[in-house]
Structure formats: C-alpha cells, structure tokens
C-alpha cells in the first residue's frame, strides 16, 4: 500500500512537473521543474529496486547535465526573460500530435497483455554489473561500452572545438 502511495506521488510529480517544464515561460523555472522530474524518475528506479541506476540518474542527470543546462541558460539569457508565445497553429499541431500519440500508446498499453514473469527478483550486485559491462560473452557489453567511450571522447573533443573562441 505504501508502495502504491509512493508511486502515485512520484507519478503525480513526474506528470505535473514535466508539463510545467515544457510550458513555463521562464527558462530557468523549466530547468528547475526538469530537475524535479529527473529526481522523481530516480525515485521510480528505487521503487523498481535499481539502486545503482537511481544513483547514476541523480548524479549524472540531476548533478551533471542539469548543471550544464543552468550554466548555459545563465550564459544565454537574462534574468526575467520571458519566451514569447508562438503561433497558435504550431502549438495546436504540437498538442494534437502529443495527444494523439498518447492516445495511441495508451490504447496499445491497455490492450496489450503483458506476460509478467513470476521469477524471483534479485537485485544485480555491483560485481555482476561490472562483469556484464566488461565481459565479452553473450549478453555482456564490452563492445557497446567501448563504443560509448569513443563517443564520449569524440564529444569532449567536439565540445572543445565548437565552444572554442575563434
């Protein structure tokens, strides 16, 4: 019961703040609302017993990315800047797309019968995570890991190149 209450609270936070985040006129508030959404998501991970993921979520997203966002917002806008509303047609089109998409997905979700596994759940240990990440067997992820590493490297270099003053 408590689990459900917590879930609904988290769900409410996610829904409300994500909507606020995309509708707020002030960009810094958007970023703040986004922070709440990300933290609530981390909460969901906790509920699903993925403590490691939740940690990553909070440290990388909430701690890293969002800080980047806040910095760049401070760099590119001035206090009290308000975004001008866009053409109603575009807003309508966007809303329509979102609503229709949501409707379709909802329909699919509700009509699909999920075969929930009855297996006993064991939280993956750190050792397990590390080995899976570094192994080369079936269902192990060394190659993607390396690919991501290269991607990150490329991003670092690219970021430096792009942001560099000319």
């Amino acid at each position: 019961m408590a689990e459900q209450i917590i879930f609904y609270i988290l769900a409410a936070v996610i829904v409300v703040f994500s909507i606020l985040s995309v509708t707020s006129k002030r960009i810094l508030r958007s970023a703040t609302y986004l922070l709440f959404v990300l933290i609530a998501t981390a909460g969901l991970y906790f509920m699903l017993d993925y403590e490691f993921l939740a940690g990553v979520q909070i440290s990388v997203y909430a701690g890293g990315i969002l800080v980047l966002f806040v910095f760049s917002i401070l760099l590119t806008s001035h206090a009290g800047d308000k975004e001008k509303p866009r053409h109603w047609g575009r807003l309508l089109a966007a809303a329509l797309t979102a609503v229709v998409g949501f409707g379709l997905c909802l329909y699919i979700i509700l009509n699909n019968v999920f075969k929930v596994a009855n297996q006993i759940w064991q939280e993956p240990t750190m050792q397990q995570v590390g080995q899976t990440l570094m192994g080369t067997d079936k269902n192990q992820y060394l190659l993607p890991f390396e690919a991501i590493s290269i991607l990150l490297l490329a991003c670092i270099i690219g970021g430096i190149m792009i942001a560099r003053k000319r």
Partner: protein
Amino acid sequence: MNVPIEAYLIVSTIMFFVGVYGFLARRNLLTILMSLELMLNAVNINFTVFNRYLFPGQLDGFFFTLFIIGIAAAETALAIAIIINIYRNIQNIFVDKVNNLKH
C-alpha cells in the same frame, strides 16, 4: 510489485509525449533540448520497467538505460556547446531565428 506495469508505462508515456509537445512547441533551443531529455527519460523508464517486470533474470534494459544516460550526457554537452556558439553568432537561441543557411 504492487504497482501494475501499466501504471509505469502510462507515466512514461505521458512524460514522453509531454516531451514531444515541448520539442515541437518551444522556441528556445535549450528548452527543446530539455524536452529531449524528458523523452529520453521516458524511454529509460520503459527499459527498466520492461526489464524488471518481464525479464527479471536479465540485465539488458538496465544496461541500455545506463548507456542512454551516458549518451544523453555527451549529447547534451555537445548540443549546449553548439547552442552557445549559435548564441555568440546571432545573439539569441531561438529556433526560428536560426535560418542563416536558408537565406
């Protein structure tokens, strides 16, 4: 496991389409990027939920989420670098003003 899988999925779907709305409707490049983060997050939730509920013996969804977070971080950093660059050039970051190549 008292919460049905559908509940998680509905939450993530709402989050995703809110992100879609934000992506389509906002003018500020940074908000667009944030909407993108929302969408990625929604996807992450789905991955973990499916992993947890349907294939509890495996770690695929887990790792995908992990990778996506990594990529999202990299992508955000890069995108912000570009956005700041644009800001330097045209003094704003509104998506409909970025049309120098068009004209």
